[in-house]
Protein backbone atom coordinates (compact mmCIF):
# COMPACT_ATOMS: atom_id res chain seq x y z
CA UNK A 1 0.00 0.00 0.00
CA UNK A 2 3.02 2.25 0.41
CA UNK A 3 3.46 3.12 -3.23
CA UNK A 4 5.60 6.19 -3.79
CA UNK A 5 4.54 9.16 -5.90
CA UNK A 6 7.00 8.17 -8.64
CA UNK A 7 5.57 4.68 -8.87
CA UNK A 8 1.97 5.90 -8.87
CA UNK A 9 2.76 8.49 -11.52
CA UNK A 10 4.47 5.88 -13.61
CA UNK A 11 1.41 3.63 -13.40
CA UNK A 12 -0.68 6.57 -14.64
CA UNK A 13 1.71 7.33 -17.49
CA UNK A 14 1.82 3.67 -18.54
CA UNK A 15 -1.97 3.44 -18.43
CA UNK A 16 -2.42 6.60 -20.52
CA UNK A 17 0.15 5.57 -23.09
CA UNK A 18 -1.26 2.04 -23.33
CA UNK A 19 -4.78 3.41 -23.85
CA UNK A 20 -3.47 5.81 -26.47
CA UNK A 21 -1.46 3.09 -28.19
CA UNK A 22 -4.50 0.85 -28.46
CA UNK A 23 -7.05 3.45 -29.56
CA UNK A 24 -4.80 6.13 -31.11
CA UNK A 25 -7.85 8.40 -31.28
CA UNK A 26 -6.15 11.46 -29.80
CA UNK A 27 -2.86 11.03 -31.59
CA UNK A 28 -4.33 10.50 -35.04
CA UNK A 29 -6.65 13.48 -34.90
CA UNK A 30 -3.95 15.68 -33.39
CA UNK A 31 -1.44 14.65 -36.05
CA UNK A 32 -3.94 15.22 -38.84
CA UNK A 33 -4.91 18.61 -37.46
CA UNK A 34 -1.28 19.74 -37.26
CA UNK A 35 -0.68 18.48 -40.80
CA UNK A 36 -3.64 20.47 -42.10
CA UNK A 37 -2.39 23.58 -40.30
CA UNK A 38 1.05 23.23 -41.89
CA UNK A 39 -0.46 22.78 -45.35
CA UNK A 40 -2.84 25.74 -44.96
CA UNK A 41 -0.01 27.95 -43.75
CA UNK A 42 2.17 26.88 -46.65
CA UNK A 43 -0.55 28.10 -49.03
CA UNK A 44 -1.04 31.32 -47.12
CA UNK A 45 2.55 32.53 -46.76
CA UNK A 46 5.31 33.29 -49.23
CA UNK A 47 8.09 30.73 -49.22
CA UNK A 48 10.98 32.92 -50.39
CA UNK A 49 12.30 33.69 -46.96
CA UNK A 50 10.07 32.09 -44.42
CA UNK A 51 12.52 32.15 -41.52
CA UNK A 52 11.25 35.36 -39.82
CA UNK A 53 7.66 34.04 -39.57
CA UNK A 54 8.41 30.35 -39.02
CA UNK A 55 8.85 30.65 -35.25
CA UNK A 56 5.29 31.91 -34.98
CA UNK A 57 3.84 29.34 -37.40
CA UNK A 58 5.49 26.35 -35.75
CA UNK A 59 4.35 27.29 -32.28
CA UNK A 60 0.82 28.21 -33.33
CA UNK A 61 0.48 24.78 -34.97
CA UNK A 62 1.80 23.02 -31.84
CA UNK A 63 -0.27 25.18 -29.50
CA UNK A 64 -3.53 24.33 -31.27
CA UNK A 65 -2.76 20.62 -31.50
CA UNK A 66 -1.79 20.59 -27.81
CA UNK A 67 -5.10 22.18 -26.88
CA UNK A 68 -6.94 19.46 -28.81
CA UNK A 69 -4.99 16.66 -27.16
CA UNK A 70 -5.34 17.99 -23.62
CA UNK A 71 -9.10 18.32 -23.76
CA UNK A 72 -9.37 14.66 -24.73
CA UNK A 73 -7.00 13.43 -22.04
CA UNK A 74 -9.33 14.45 -19.20
CA UNK A 75 -12.58 13.89 -21.07
CA UNK A 76 -11.80 10.16 -21.13
CA UNK A 77 -11.31 10.09 -17.36
CA UNK A 78 -14.52 11.99 -16.77
CA UNK A 79 -16.55 9.60 -18.95
CA UNK A 80 -15.28 6.57 -17.08
CA UNK A 81 -15.63 8.12 -13.62
CA UNK A 82 -11.90 7.91 -12.96
CA UNK A 83 -11.86 11.33 -11.33
CA UNK A 84 -14.42 10.28 -8.73
CA UNK A 85 -12.47 7.10 -8.09
CA UNK A 86 -9.35 9.16 -7.60
CA UNK A 87 -11.04 11.49 -5.17
CA UNK A 88 -11.93 8.63 -2.84
CA UNK A 89 -8.64 6.76 -3.22
CA UNK A 90 -5.79 7.42 -0.76
CA UNK A 91 -3.31 8.03 -3.60
CA UNK A 92 -2.06 11.63 -3.68
CA UNK A 93 -3.64 13.80 -6.38
CA UNK A 94 -0.20 15.04 -7.39
CA UNK A 95 0.66 11.56 -8.67
CA UNK A 96 -2.32 11.64 -11.02
CA UNK A 97 -1.35 15.11 -12.20
CA UNK A 98 2.31 14.23 -12.72
CA UNK A 99 1.29 11.10 -14.63
CA UNK A 100 -1.03 13.08 -16.88
CA UNK A 101 1.58 15.77 -17.52
CA UNK A 102 4.28 13.23 -18.40
CA UNK A 103 1.94 11.26 -20.64
CA UNK A 104 0.88 14.41 -22.52
CA UNK A 105 4.48 15.62 -22.67
CA UNK A 106 5.62 12.40 -24.35
CA UNK A 107 2.68 12.56 -26.77
CA UNK A 108 3.32 16.19 -27.78
CA UNK A 109 7.09 15.65 -28.11
CA UNK A 110 6.38 12.73 -30.42
CA UNK A 111 4.09 14.95 -32.46
CA UNK A 112 6.76 17.64 -32.66
CA UNK A 113 9.38 15.14 -33.82
CA UNK A 114 7.04 14.01 -36.58
CA UNK A 115 6.04 17.56 -37.55
CA UNK A 116 9.52 19.08 -37.71
CA UNK A 117 10.46 17.29 -40.98
CA UNK A 118 7.19 18.51 -42.52
CA UNK A 119 8.12 22.12 -41.79
CA UNK A 120 11.52 21.49 -43.35
CA UNK A 121 9.94 19.99 -46.47
CA UNK A 122 7.10 22.47 -46.99
CA UNK A 123 9.08 25.64 -46.30
CA UNK A 124 12.53 24.53 -47.44
CA UNK A 125 13.64 25.45 -43.95
CA UNK A 126 17.13 25.34 -42.54
CA UNK A 127 18.47 26.92 -39.39
CA UNK A 128 21.22 29.52 -39.38
CA UNK A 129 21.83 29.27 -35.63
CA UNK A 130 22.85 26.11 -33.72
CA UNK A 131 20.27 23.32 -33.80
CA UNK A 132 20.70 22.15 -30.20
CA UNK A 133 19.25 25.47 -29.05
CA UNK A 134 16.05 24.66 -30.94
CA UNK A 135 15.92 21.37 -29.05
CA UNK A 136 16.23 23.08 -25.69
CA UNK A 137 13.58 25.67 -26.62
CA UNK A 138 11.24 22.90 -27.79
CA UNK A 139 11.66 20.94 -24.54
CA UNK A 140 11.14 23.96 -22.29
CA UNK A 141 8.32 25.39 -24.39
CA UNK A 142 6.48 22.09 -24.62
CA UNK A 143 6.78 21.57 -20.89
CA UNK A 144 5.40 25.09 -20.26
CA UNK A 145 2.42 24.43 -22.56
CA UNK A 146 1.73 20.92 -21.28
CA UNK A 147 1.98 21.57 -17.55
CA UNK A 148 -0.34 24.60 -17.67
CA UNK A 149 -2.54 22.96 -20.29
CA UNK A 150 -3.06 19.80 -18.24
CA UNK A 151 -3.96 21.88 -15.20
CA UNK A 152 -6.39 24.13 -17.04
CA UNK A 153 -7.93 21.20 -18.89
CA UNK A 154 -8.70 19.67 -15.49
CA UNK A 155 -10.22 23.00 -14.51
CA UNK A 156 -12.23 23.52 -17.67
CA UNK A 157 -13.91 20.08 -17.66
CA UNK A 158 -15.56 21.25 -14.42
CA UNK A 159 -17.33 24.10 -16.20
CA UNK A 160 -20.50 24.09 -18.28
CA UNK A 161 -18.91 24.65 -21.71
CA UNK A 162 -16.06 22.18 -21.24
CA UNK A 163 -14.02 22.04 -24.44
CA UNK A 164 -14.63 25.69 -25.18
CA UNK A 165 -13.18 26.82 -21.89
CA UNK A 166 -9.63 25.41 -22.22
CA UNK A 167 -8.28 27.80 -24.88
CA UNK A 168 -9.93 30.74 -23.12
CA UNK A 169 -8.03 29.93 -19.92
CA UNK A 170 -4.81 28.50 -21.33
CA UNK A 171 -3.96 31.05 -24.01
CA UNK A 172 -3.83 34.18 -21.81
CA UNK A 173 -1.76 32.37 -19.16
CA UNK A 174 0.63 31.05 -21.83
CA UNK A 175 1.14 34.34 -23.70
CA UNK A 176 4.46 35.20 -21.96
CA UNK A 177 5.78 31.71 -22.65
CA UNK A 178 4.54 31.66 -26.25
CA UNK A 179 6.01 35.11 -26.95
CA UNK A 180 9.37 33.98 -25.62
CA UNK A 181 9.29 30.66 -27.48
CA UNK A 182 8.47 32.43 -30.73
CA UNK A 183 11.16 35.11 -30.39
CA UNK A 184 13.75 32.54 -29.31
CA UNK A 185 12.91 30.17 -32.19
CA UNK A 186 13.02 33.03 -34.69
CA UNK A 187 16.38 34.19 -33.32
CA UNK A 188 17.88 30.73 -33.76
CA UNK A 189 16.38 30.20 -37.22
CA UNK A 190 17.53 33.56 -38.56
CA UNK A 191 20.81 33.48 -36.66
CA UNK A 192 20.24 37.02 -35.34
CA UNK A 193 21.27 37.09 -31.71
CA UNK A 194 21.53 34.38 -29.07
CA UNK A 195 18.34 33.42 -27.22
CA UNK A 196 20.06 33.00 -23.81
CA UNK A 197 17.75 35.47 -22.00
CA UNK A 198 14.66 33.85 -23.49
CA UNK A 199 15.80 30.36 -22.47
CA UNK A 200 16.38 31.50 -18.89
CA UNK A 201 13.00 33.21 -18.89
CA UNK A 202 11.32 30.02 -20.16
CA UNK A 203 13.09 27.92 -17.54
CA UNK A 204 11.94 30.32 -14.82
CA UNK A 205 8.40 30.28 -16.21
CA UNK A 206 8.38 26.46 -16.16
CA UNK A 207 9.60 26.33 -12.54
CA UNK A 208 7.08 28.93 -11.29
CA UNK A 209 4.04 27.48 -13.03
CA UNK A 210 4.92 23.83 -12.38
CA UNK A 211 5.12 24.64 -8.68
CA UNK A 212 1.79 26.48 -8.78
CA UNK A 213 0.12 23.59 -10.64
CA UNK A 214 1.30 21.03 -8.11
CA UNK A 215 0.22 23.16 -5.17
CA UNK A 216 -3.26 23.82 -6.52
CA UNK A 217 -4.13 20.61 -8.37
CA UNK A 218 -5.70 18.84 -5.40
CA UNK A 219 -7.92 21.88 -4.73
CA UNK A 220 -9.16 21.87 -8.31
CA UNK A 221 -9.68 18.09 -8.37
CA UNK A 222 -11.84 18.28 -5.26
CA UNK A 223 -13.74 21.46 -6.16
CA UNK A 224 -17.44 20.72 -5.87
Amino acid at each position, binding site marked *: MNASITRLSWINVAKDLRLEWRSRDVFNSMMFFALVVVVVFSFAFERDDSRPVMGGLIWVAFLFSTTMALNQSWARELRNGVLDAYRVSPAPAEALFLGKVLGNFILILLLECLMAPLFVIFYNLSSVGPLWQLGVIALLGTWALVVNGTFFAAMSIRTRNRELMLPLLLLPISIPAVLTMVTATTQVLTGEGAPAVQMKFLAGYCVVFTTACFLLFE*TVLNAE
Partner: protein
Amino acid sequence: MKTKLFFVFAAFCCAFLAYGTYQALVVAPTEETMGDVQRIFYVHVPAATVGFTLFFVNFIASLAYLWKRSPKADALAAASAEVGVVFCSVVLITGPIWARYAWGVWWSPWDMRLNTTLMLWLLYVSYLILRKSSTGSSTSVLASALAVFAFLDVPIVYMANRWFRTHHPAPMIGTPNLDHRMQNILFINMLAFLVFGSLIAWFRYELERTTQKINAAHVRRAATGGAAMLALPAMFLATPNHVNPTAYLWGGYLAAWGIYVGYLLFLMSKLAKLKKETAEL
Protein backbone atom coordinates in the same frame (compact mmCIF):
# COMPACT_ATOMS: atom_id res chain seq x y z
CA MET B 1 -25.80 53.29 8.50
CA LYS B 2 -23.85 51.56 5.77
CA THR B 3 -25.84 53.33 3.05
CA LYS B 4 -25.27 56.73 4.68
CA LEU B 5 -21.54 56.06 4.93
CA PHE B 6 -21.52 55.01 1.30
CA PHE B 7 -23.11 58.26 0.14
CA VAL B 8 -20.79 60.41 2.27
CA PHE B 9 -17.87 58.50 0.75
CA ALA B 10 -19.31 58.94 -2.74
CA ALA B 11 -19.74 62.71 -2.27
CA PHE B 12 -16.17 63.01 -1.00
CA CYS B 13 -14.98 60.95 -3.96
CA CYS B 14 -16.80 63.20 -6.47
CA ALA B 15 -15.30 66.34 -4.95
CA PHE B 16 -11.82 64.82 -4.87
CA LEU B 17 -12.07 63.64 -8.49
CA ALA B 18 -13.30 67.05 -9.63
CA TYR B 19 -10.41 68.73 -7.82
CA GLY B 20 -7.88 66.27 -9.31
CA THR B 21 -9.25 66.70 -12.83
CA TYR B 22 -9.22 70.50 -12.47
CA GLN B 23 -5.59 70.35 -11.36
CA ALA B 24 -4.70 68.06 -14.27
CA LEU B 25 -6.47 70.03 -16.99
CA VAL B 26 -5.94 73.61 -15.84
CA VAL B 27 -3.23 73.97 -13.23
CA ALA B 28 -0.64 71.45 -14.43
CA PRO B 29 2.12 72.89 -16.65
CA THR B 30 1.97 72.00 -20.34
CA GLU B 31 4.63 69.51 -21.37
CA GLU B 32 7.20 70.95 -23.79
CA THR B 33 7.34 68.39 -26.61
CA MET B 34 3.95 66.67 -26.43
CA GLY B 35 1.78 69.62 -25.52
CA ASP B 36 -1.67 69.14 -24.04
CA VAL B 37 -1.90 65.46 -24.93
CA GLN B 38 0.51 64.70 -22.11
CA ARG B 39 -2.32 65.50 -19.66
CA ILE B 40 -3.70 62.03 -20.43
CA PHE B 41 -0.91 61.01 -18.06
CA TYR B 42 -3.16 62.05 -15.17
CA VAL B 43 -5.85 59.49 -16.05
CA HIS B 44 -3.62 56.83 -17.63
CA VAL B 45 -1.18 56.28 -14.76
CA PRO B 46 -3.75 56.47 -11.91
CA ALA B 47 -5.98 53.97 -13.78
CA ALA B 48 -3.00 51.60 -14.05
CA THR B 49 -2.25 52.03 -10.34
CA VAL B 50 -5.85 51.30 -9.37
CA GLY B 51 -6.11 48.37 -11.79
CA PHE B 52 -2.95 46.68 -10.54
CA THR B 53 -3.93 47.36 -6.91
CA LEU B 54 -7.31 45.73 -7.48
CA PHE B 55 -5.67 42.70 -9.12
CA PHE B 56 -3.50 42.43 -6.04
CA VAL B 57 -6.61 42.61 -3.82
CA ASN B 58 -8.12 39.88 -6.01
CA PHE B 59 -5.04 37.70 -5.43
CA ILE B 60 -5.12 38.19 -1.64
CA ALA B 61 -8.87 37.60 -1.49
CA SER B 62 -8.51 34.43 -3.58
CA LEU B 63 -5.78 33.10 -1.30
CA ALA B 64 -7.98 33.93 1.67
CA TYR B 65 -10.84 32.06 0.03
CA LEU B 66 -8.68 29.00 -0.65
CA TRP B 67 -7.63 29.02 2.99
CA LYS B 68 -10.81 29.97 4.88
CA ARG B 69 -13.55 29.30 2.29
CA SER B 70 -15.43 32.40 3.36
CA PRO B 71 -18.05 33.72 0.90
CA LYS B 72 -17.02 37.28 1.79
CA ALA B 73 -13.51 36.69 0.44
CA ASP B 74 -15.03 35.25 -2.70
CA ALA B 75 -17.28 38.29 -3.15
CA LEU B 76 -14.28 40.57 -2.69
CA ALA B 77 -12.30 38.58 -5.27
CA ALA B 78 -15.13 38.78 -7.80
CA ALA B 79 -15.67 42.51 -7.21
CA SER B 80 -12.00 43.48 -7.39
CA ALA B 81 -11.39 41.47 -10.57
CA GLU B 82 -14.33 43.03 -12.37
CA VAL B 83 -13.54 46.61 -11.32
CA GLY B 84 -9.85 45.96 -12.04
CA VAL B 85 -10.75 44.95 -15.59
CA VAL B 86 -12.66 48.22 -15.99
CA PHE B 87 -9.67 50.30 -14.87
CA CYS B 88 -7.31 48.19 -16.98
CA SER B 89 -9.56 48.86 -19.99
CA VAL B 90 -9.16 52.58 -19.35
CA VAL B 91 -5.37 52.12 -19.37
CA LEU B 92 -5.56 50.21 -22.63
CA ILE B 93 -7.81 52.82 -24.30
CA THR B 94 -6.13 56.00 -23.12
CA GLY B 95 -2.66 54.57 -23.78
CA PRO B 96 -3.10 54.14 -27.56
CA ILE B 97 -4.76 57.59 -27.88
CA TRP B 98 -1.70 59.14 -26.25
CA ALA B 99 0.71 56.90 -28.19
CA ARG B 100 -0.90 57.80 -31.50
CA TYR B 101 0.13 61.41 -30.92
CA ALA B 102 3.44 60.82 -29.15
CA TRP B 103 4.79 57.85 -31.14
CA GLY B 104 2.66 58.14 -34.30
CA VAL B 105 1.17 54.63 -33.89
CA TRP B 106 -1.77 53.30 -31.89
CA TRP B 107 -0.05 50.17 -30.77
CA SER B 108 3.47 48.86 -30.92
CA PRO B 109 3.11 45.09 -31.32
CA TRP B 110 6.56 44.10 -30.08
CA ASP B 111 6.53 46.26 -27.00
CA MET B 112 6.60 43.98 -23.98
CA ARG B 113 5.10 46.51 -21.59
CA LEU B 114 2.04 47.02 -23.79
CA ASN B 115 1.69 43.33 -24.49
CA THR B 116 1.94 42.36 -20.86
CA THR B 117 -0.70 44.90 -19.82
CA LEU B 118 -2.99 43.60 -22.55
CA MET B 119 -2.20 40.08 -21.36
CA LEU B 120 -3.20 40.96 -17.79
CA TRP B 121 -6.47 42.33 -19.12
CA LEU B 122 -7.05 39.11 -21.10
CA LEU B 123 -6.22 37.01 -18.03
CA TYR B 124 -8.75 38.75 -15.85
CA VAL B 125 -11.37 38.69 -18.59
CA SER B 126 -10.84 34.92 -18.78
CA TYR B 127 -11.24 34.88 -14.99
CA LEU B 128 -14.60 36.63 -15.32
CA ILE B 129 -15.65 34.22 -18.08
CA LEU B 130 -14.72 31.27 -15.87
CA ARG B 131 -16.81 32.74 -13.06
CA LYS B 132 -19.79 33.04 -15.39
CA SER B 133 -19.54 29.61 -16.96
CA SER B 134 -18.75 27.34 -14.04
CA THR B 135 -21.56 25.90 -12.04
CA GLY B 136 -22.60 25.91 -8.42
CA SER B 137 -20.15 26.00 -5.59
CA SER B 138 -17.16 24.91 -7.70
CA THR B 139 -17.07 28.43 -9.20
CA SER B 140 -15.33 30.02 -6.25
CA VAL B 141 -12.67 27.33 -5.90
CA LEU B 142 -11.83 27.19 -9.60
CA ALA B 143 -11.83 30.97 -9.86
CA SER B 144 -9.50 31.36 -6.87
CA ALA B 145 -7.07 28.83 -8.34
CA LEU B 146 -7.08 30.73 -11.64
CA ALA B 147 -6.58 34.03 -9.80
CA VAL B 148 -3.38 32.70 -8.22
CA PHE B 149 -2.09 31.75 -11.68
CA ALA B 150 -3.09 35.08 -13.16
CA PHE B 151 -1.30 36.99 -10.45
CA LEU B 152 1.92 35.05 -11.05
CA ASP B 153 2.05 36.96 -14.34
CA VAL B 154 1.97 40.37 -12.65
CA PRO B 155 5.67 40.40 -11.62
CA ILE B 156 6.44 39.57 -15.25
CA VAL B 157 4.53 42.70 -16.26
CA TYR B 158 6.58 44.77 -13.88
CA MET B 159 9.91 43.27 -14.89
CA ALA B 160 9.17 43.31 -18.63
CA ASN B 161 10.29 46.93 -18.85
CA ARG B 162 13.76 46.04 -17.70
CA TRP B 163 14.22 42.71 -19.48
CA PHE B 164 13.04 43.56 -22.95
CA ARG B 165 13.15 46.46 -25.36
CA THR B 166 10.26 48.87 -24.91
CA HIS B 167 8.93 52.19 -26.17
CA HIS B 168 7.09 52.75 -22.97
CA PRO B 169 8.84 55.19 -20.63
CA ALA B 170 10.22 53.74 -17.40
CA PRO B 171 8.42 54.82 -14.23
CA MET B 172 9.50 58.39 -13.50
CA ILE B 173 8.02 58.98 -10.07
CA GLY B 174 10.67 60.18 -7.62
CA THR B 175 13.25 60.80 -10.35
CA PRO B 176 14.45 64.33 -11.25
CA ASN B 177 13.07 63.80 -14.79
CA LEU B 178 9.56 64.52 -13.59
CA ASP B 179 8.62 68.13 -12.87
CA HIS B 180 7.66 68.28 -9.19
CA ARG B 181 4.40 70.15 -9.93
CA MET B 182 3.45 67.37 -12.35
CA GLN B 183 4.40 64.82 -9.75
CA ASN B 184 2.21 66.42 -7.08
CA ILE B 185 -0.75 66.61 -9.41
CA LEU B 186 -0.16 62.99 -10.41
CA PHE B 187 -0.24 62.00 -6.74
CA ILE B 188 -3.47 63.93 -6.18
CA ASN B 189 -5.01 62.13 -9.14
CA MET B 190 -3.69 58.75 -8.04
CA LEU B 191 -5.26 59.23 -4.62
CA ALA B 192 -8.52 60.49 -6.13
CA PHE B 193 -8.73 57.50 -8.45
CA LEU B 194 -7.80 55.09 -5.66
CA VAL B 195 -10.72 56.51 -3.66
CA PHE B 196 -12.92 56.20 -6.76
CA GLY B 197 -11.73 52.63 -7.38
CA SER B 198 -12.38 51.53 -3.83
CA LEU B 199 -15.81 53.16 -3.96
CA ILE B 200 -16.82 51.21 -7.08
CA ALA B 201 -15.24 48.04 -5.72
CA TRP B 202 -17.20 48.46 -2.50
CA PHE B 203 -20.41 48.96 -4.47
CA ARG B 204 -19.66 45.90 -6.59
CA TYR B 205 -18.80 43.90 -3.45
CA GLU B 206 -22.17 44.72 -1.87
CA LEU B 207 -23.88 43.67 -5.10
CA GLU B 208 -21.96 40.38 -5.06
CA ARG B 209 -22.93 39.78 -1.43
CA THR B 210 -26.57 40.45 -2.25
CA THR B 211 -26.31 38.03 -5.17
CA GLN B 212 -24.80 35.40 -2.91
CA LYS B 213 -27.60 35.87 -0.42
CA ILE B 214 -30.25 35.64 -3.11
CA ASN B 215 -28.58 32.52 -4.52
CA ALA B 216 -28.52 31.04 -1.08
CA ALA B 217 -32.24 31.77 -0.71
CA HIS B 218 -33.14 30.16 -3.99
CA VAL B 219 -30.60 28.80 -6.43
CA ARG B 220 -30.95 30.85 -9.52
CA ARG B 221 -28.47 32.44 -11.81
CA ALA B 222 -27.96 36.14 -11.61
CA ALA B 223 -28.73 38.11 -14.72
CA THR B 224 -25.91 38.74 -17.12
CA GLY B 225 -25.26 42.04 -18.74
CA GLY B 226 -23.36 43.32 -21.72
CA ALA B 227 -20.20 45.34 -21.33
CA ALA B 228 -20.35 49.04 -22.01
CA MET B 229 -19.57 49.74 -25.65
CA LEU B 230 -17.67 52.75 -26.65
CA ALA B 231 -17.15 54.52 -29.95
CA LEU B 232 -14.00 56.54 -30.47
CA PRO B 233 -14.14 59.77 -32.46
CA ALA B 234 -13.10 59.94 -36.08
CA MET B 235 -9.47 60.79 -35.28
CA PHE B 236 -8.55 57.27 -36.38
CA LEU B 237 -8.19 58.68 -39.86
CA ALA B 238 -6.21 61.81 -39.06
CA THR B 239 -2.41 61.92 -39.24
CA PRO B 240 -0.91 62.94 -35.91
CA ASN B 241 1.12 65.88 -37.29
CA HIS B 242 -1.89 67.84 -38.43
CA VAL B 243 -3.89 67.32 -35.33
CA ASN B 244 -4.09 69.48 -32.28
CA PRO B 245 -2.85 67.52 -29.22
CA THR B 246 -5.87 68.85 -27.34
CA ALA B 247 -8.13 66.72 -29.54
CA TYR B 248 -6.25 63.63 -28.37
CA LEU B 249 -6.44 64.85 -24.79
CA TRP B 250 -10.22 65.13 -25.02
CA GLY B 251 -10.38 61.78 -26.76
CA GLY B 252 -8.48 60.21 -23.87
CA TYR B 253 -10.58 61.85 -21.18
CA LEU B 254 -13.86 61.08 -22.92
CA ALA B 255 -12.88 57.44 -23.42
CA ALA B 256 -11.81 57.04 -19.79
CA TRP B 257 -14.94 58.64 -18.38
CA GLY B 258 -17.12 56.88 -20.92
CA ILE B 259 -15.89 53.56 -19.54
CA TYR B 260 -16.27 54.60 -15.91
CA VAL B 261 -19.77 56.00 -16.37
CA GLY B 262 -20.80 53.08 -18.57
CA TYR B 263 -19.64 50.64 -15.92
CA LEU B 264 -21.45 52.56 -13.18
CA LEU B 265 -24.65 52.49 -15.24
CA PHE B 266 -24.19 48.74 -15.70
CA LEU B 267 -23.83 48.33 -11.93
CA MET B 268 -26.95 50.45 -11.38
CA SER B 269 -28.99 48.22 -13.68
CA LYS B 270 -27.63 45.18 -11.85
CA LEU B 271 -28.62 46.76 -8.54
CA ALA B 272 -32.14 47.43 -9.83
CA LYS B 273 -32.46 43.78 -10.94
CA LEU B 274 -31.24 42.52 -7.58
CA LYS B 275 -33.67 44.79 -5.73
CA LYS B 276 -36.51 43.43 -7.81
CA GLU B 277 -35.41 39.88 -7.13
CA THR B 278 -35.11 40.52 -3.40
CA ALA B 279 -38.59 42.01 -3.39
CA GLU B 280 -39.97 38.87 -5.04
CA LEU B 281 -38.52 36.61 -2.34
